[in-house]
């Protein structure tokens, strides 16, 4: 956990509503960590899962959904921003030999960083990335030297169906799975398969455990997505309707 001033080195539109931003100057985070970015003109910071880290540059992806992310699209290369970095817990990869990684939509972001950390250790994970449609696909792993299995809800590219549908149909071998995406998708994964790690998203106040704005219910009581999470075991999360 650190308060740092970062310099934007890239801020580029990838799809109709997804942007990629690169920021120089943060200490190396762990896969699963997120950062809180201060957006000029917005009172609260915005949390983003770290999608990659190399040569001091942190990579994040964001979808334009509101005022804050709209303002972000106008931020220029070379501009400096305040950030709280190294927030949250991280994925547990201890002893994992055959990881299965499953993402829905923008959920690929923290999992991309995780996949890259496996590749560094000489382990190639099976990465299944689901998107709505062909035009929503982000080709995020090109540089890492391996390709994810792509699924689309409408069948316009790759496997026809969701990432969870793919796993249920093909039943690949794995010793631990990692998932990030919309809540219904995570609920589906947790219901179908045990032994997973889920990275959750939540509307946050502070991002570092002070406001209790993002607490979820777990089998061990209330936990904060920003502090005890964002990574939770698939067995502990109590999903609502």
């Amino acid at each position: 956990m650190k308060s740092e001033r970062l310099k934007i080195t890239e801020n580029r539109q990838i799809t109709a509503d997804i942007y990629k931003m690169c920021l120089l100057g943060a200490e190396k985070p762990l896969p699963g960590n997120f950062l809180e970015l201060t957006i000029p003109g917005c009172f609260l910071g915005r949390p983003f899962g770290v999608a990659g880290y190399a040569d001091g540059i942190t990579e994040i992806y964001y979808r334009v959904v509101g005022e804050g992310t709209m303002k972000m699209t106008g931020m220029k290369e070379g501009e400096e921003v305040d950030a709280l970095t190294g927030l949250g817990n991280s994925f547990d990869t201890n002893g994992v030999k055959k990881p299965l990684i499953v993402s829905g939509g923008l959920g690929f972001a923290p999992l991309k960083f995780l996949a890259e950390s496996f590749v560094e250790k000489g382990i190639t994970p099976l990465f299944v990335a689901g998107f709505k449609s062909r035009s929503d696909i982000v080709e995020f792993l090109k540089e890492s030297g391996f390709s994810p299995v792509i699924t689309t809800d409408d069948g316009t590219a790759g496997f026809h169906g969701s990432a969870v549908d793919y796993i249920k149909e093909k039943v690949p071998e794995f010793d631990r799975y990692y998932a990030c995406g919309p809540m219904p998708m995570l609920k589906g994964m947790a219901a179908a398969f045990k032994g997973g790690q889920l990275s959750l998203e939540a509307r946050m106040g502070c991002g570092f455990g002070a406001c209790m704005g993002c607490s979820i219910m777990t089998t061990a009581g209330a936990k904060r997505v920003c502090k005890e999470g964002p990574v939770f075991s698939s067995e502990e999360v109590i999903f609502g309707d």
Partner: protein
Amino acid sequence: MDNPVIPASGTFGFGYEFNNWFDISVLGSIALKGTTIEARYGNPLPRIAECPAGMINAIGLQNPGAVAVRDIELKKLAAVYPKKVIANVGGHSFGEYVETSAILSAAEEVFAIELNVSCPNVKGGGMAFGLDAGVLEELTAAVKEASSKPVIVKLSPNVTDITVLAKAAERGGADGLSLINTLVGMRIDLRTAKPIISVKRGGYSGPGVFPVAVNAVYNTREAVSLPIVGMGGIMNAENVIEMMYAGADCVMVGTLNLIDPCGSKKIIEDLPGVMERLGIDKLTDIVGRAHR
């Protein structure tokens, strides 16, 4: 206290986690997260909505319960913070307030009870106790009797005249007042046309409420002779001076802690420079200066 800056309840957890950001022993004291007799999960998500100059929260008093706070949270805090703290007490009934105050005031780490009768986020409780002068006077007296430490009553700004409630707390035997708690507010999602907060409304805080807080403290200073803890949207050392001019004996810093974990520390560091610039020798000299 060696300085007048205290992180406000609900913006600083139980304190010890902030020691990862800075040495929290610089703080004058710490107001703990609002505590109830039983553990509470709080409200469903979303609990937070952003505003132009602040935020709305509707946490709903998530806390582990009075006994766990006394036996676990206070011990963790004492390991990194040597000074005495303020326990913030919430409840749904006289009985709950009294019982929680008795438990927490008995803890050696606690030097005062802050009575939260102004939380807008708890159904059938919280703020309901702070809007009626008769009820507030009676509750204050009951908690005074149960508490072995001084009792500070935290007042709501969601009233026509805050001084009526300030006088009621004084009659009930309060040892001090803290004000203001959050202002009831709502934001509506433009896409869904529904309130952003799950329980529709919450408490608005941040720099947008600062002028409201200064006015409330000014008016209360004229109405009662009790010590006043001023709070509401304090973002910097200048705001601290302004709040003390209005009549605050010390201040609490709230929402700032949520956007800058080192915010309270920076204010303490900046205070001497601002005092020098304004020709202030001692902060105790300036309390209520705007009234003279």
